[in-house]
């Protein structure tokens, strides 16, 4: 177990294409950090640089006290779970689990002990002698996890491990990964493009955009105070509403309503979470909206509205009646105000 320190990390491919640059992340011992971002943001590259599968062209990665830049993947004391599981198809589950230990010259009795222990934790004891192709997706996922935990490494690296599973299995495996990591207390770095997965798993989120860190923070912190429109729209479902507004003399004009704010005058983007929107009471500042359609989610209903030619989503309790022309409002404290460059300014 160890902390992972990433300093000014960069990757430039031959030919000058830069995949990631200037990454600084301090991952504490035992922490579960999730790298999240849209495809092409460099999150997988970053993970593979930590693993040693991708060469580091700038900066430094330290696992524990060691700088690992020039170490082979095997020498970095990490274990990785791949998106396609990467189980060795010609080996039985038991052989898959013991391969890494055998390569390191672990005594036979110790291998057997660790494999049995991992099989017990992951409940895969019944099919230790099967080949991977005879397993279901969820079982393969467990074996891939098992291969990581038998090694008892300093850190686990996960590369979108759940994206090949169906939705239901994904939710349950997500819970299991979280519980397992808490129990073992192993430092973990997890890559996903699924913001919900990121929110539910992470001790801390690292939101990446175009190869750079956009925001680092606890999931709720990122959710409540996104530093930019990019993070605001990426984290949370449905995506945060983003309306054009203008500030003049301490008053924000947005969607036909005027609200007091304490930011410098100028054009702004105003973010409002769907669940912060509500029907305006009498005498309240209101945003007049036209209902386009309603999505029924069961526990709540999402109204899709049109406000001055822009789209806006608001969440209501399931029994809330909605008319075609409606007045919406939001508490000034729940507003997210971003400057013209997309950075948070309130």
């Amino acid at each position, binding site marked *: 177990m160890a902390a992972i320190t990433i300093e000014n990390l960069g990757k430039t491919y031959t030919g000058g294409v830069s995949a990631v640059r200037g990454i600084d992340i301090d991952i504490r011992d035992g922490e579960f950090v999730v790298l999240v971002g849209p495809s092409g943001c460099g999150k997988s590259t970053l993970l593979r640089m930590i693993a*040693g*599968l991708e060469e580091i062209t700038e900066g430094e990665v330290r696992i524990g006290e060691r700088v690992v830049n020039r170490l082979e993947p*095997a020498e970095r004391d990490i274990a990785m779970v791949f998106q396609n599981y990467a189980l*060795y198809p010609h080996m039985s589950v038991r052989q898959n689990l013991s*391969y890494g230990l055998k390569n390191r010259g672990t005594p036979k009795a110790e291998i057997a002990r660790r494999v049995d222990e991992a099989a017990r934790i992951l409940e895969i004891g019944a099919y230790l002698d099967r080949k991977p192709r005879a397993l279901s997706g969820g079982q393969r996922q467990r074996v891939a996890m098992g*291969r990581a935990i038998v090694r008892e490494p300093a850190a686990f690296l996960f590369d979108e491990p759940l994206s090949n599973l169906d939705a239901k299995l994904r939710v349950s495996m997500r819970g299991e990964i979280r519980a397992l990591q808490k129990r073992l207390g192993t430092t973990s770095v997890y890559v996903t493009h699924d913001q919900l997965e990121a929110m539910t798993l992470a001790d801390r989120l690292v939101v990446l955009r175009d190869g750079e860190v956009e925001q680092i923070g606890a999931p709720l912190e990122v959710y409540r105070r996104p530093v930019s429109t990019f993070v605001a729209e990426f984290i949370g479902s449905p995506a945060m509403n983003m309306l054009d507004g203008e500030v003049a003399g301490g008053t924000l004009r947005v969607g036909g309503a005027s609200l007091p704010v304490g930011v410098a005058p100028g054009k702004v983007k105003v973010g409002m979470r769907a669940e912060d929107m509500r029907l305006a009471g009498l005498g309240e500042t209101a945003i007049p909206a036209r209902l386009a359609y309603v999505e029924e989610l069961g526990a709540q209903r999402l109204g899709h509205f049109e406000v001055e030619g822009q789209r806006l989503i608001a969440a209501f309790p399931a029994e809330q009646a909605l008319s075609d022309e409606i007045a919406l409002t939001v508490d000034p404290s729940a507003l997210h105000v971003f400057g013209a460059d997309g950075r948070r300014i309130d």
Partner: protein
Amino acid sequence: MQTKRTIFRSRGLPYLLLAPQLAITIIFFLWPAGQAVWQSFLREDAFGLKTSFVGLANYTRLFHSPDYLNAMQVTLVFAVSTAALAMILSLLLAVAVDRLIRASRWYTTLLVWPYAVAPAVAGILWWFIFNPTIGIMPYVLASVGISWNHLLDKGDAMLLVIVAAAWKQVSYNFLFFVAGLQSIPASLREAAAIDGAGPVKRFFTITLPLLSPTTFFLLVVNVVYTLFDTFPVIDATTEGGPAQATNTLVYKVYMDGFVGLDLGSSAAQSVVLMAIVISLTVVQFRFVERRVTY
């Protein structure tokens, strides 16, 4: 896997569509094969004036002939060595190309070229290179103290036909090995690297076992190739000599039949070859379908 079935309205049409292929198979394969089987029971004098039915006499004589048993042994050595050489060489090349990222298509194209060379031309090429009088290789070898003369030395002759035959086959094997290597997910090798296996260990514990379907397929194809398709190579380089040292089964069929005009024995030898290729094919289908798939 579900197969799609096409329903024909008239019963004649499917047969009509099959007819050209069937005609070719019957005229150029089944008929001559049948003739060979019939011929193998006959004995003909050298001038073709008299033919008599001799039953299995051709076969019994064959299996008591030291020449034939020698040819079998030669063929075994030749087939095993050629297949082994061609496969190991092409696997090495394929692994080397698989490691390249950018130039790999160029290498692949270049390495495929020998396959397009006609076997007889390839044979002549090697004949020139190794010709004891005018060839470049005997000259080079002589400078390092090795005397080469495949016209006199049995070992040299065997080596020559093995090299010439394997060279032709390397391209073919190479293509299949490259395709096989590329179908192994990179993440498997990465996982093995993280699991502490070095490049050599990765190759032997991960890559090679996962290539085994390709390897097995190529083994059968190569053995069949060396048994039957190497006639031009041998004819152009050593003509079975010296002293029968490179006289393989298929070359002996030609020598006995068309040069020696012992048609009965030659036909019997063809039938033996036919039996061998049929059993090899059966083995291939049985194995490939069962064991070597993942």
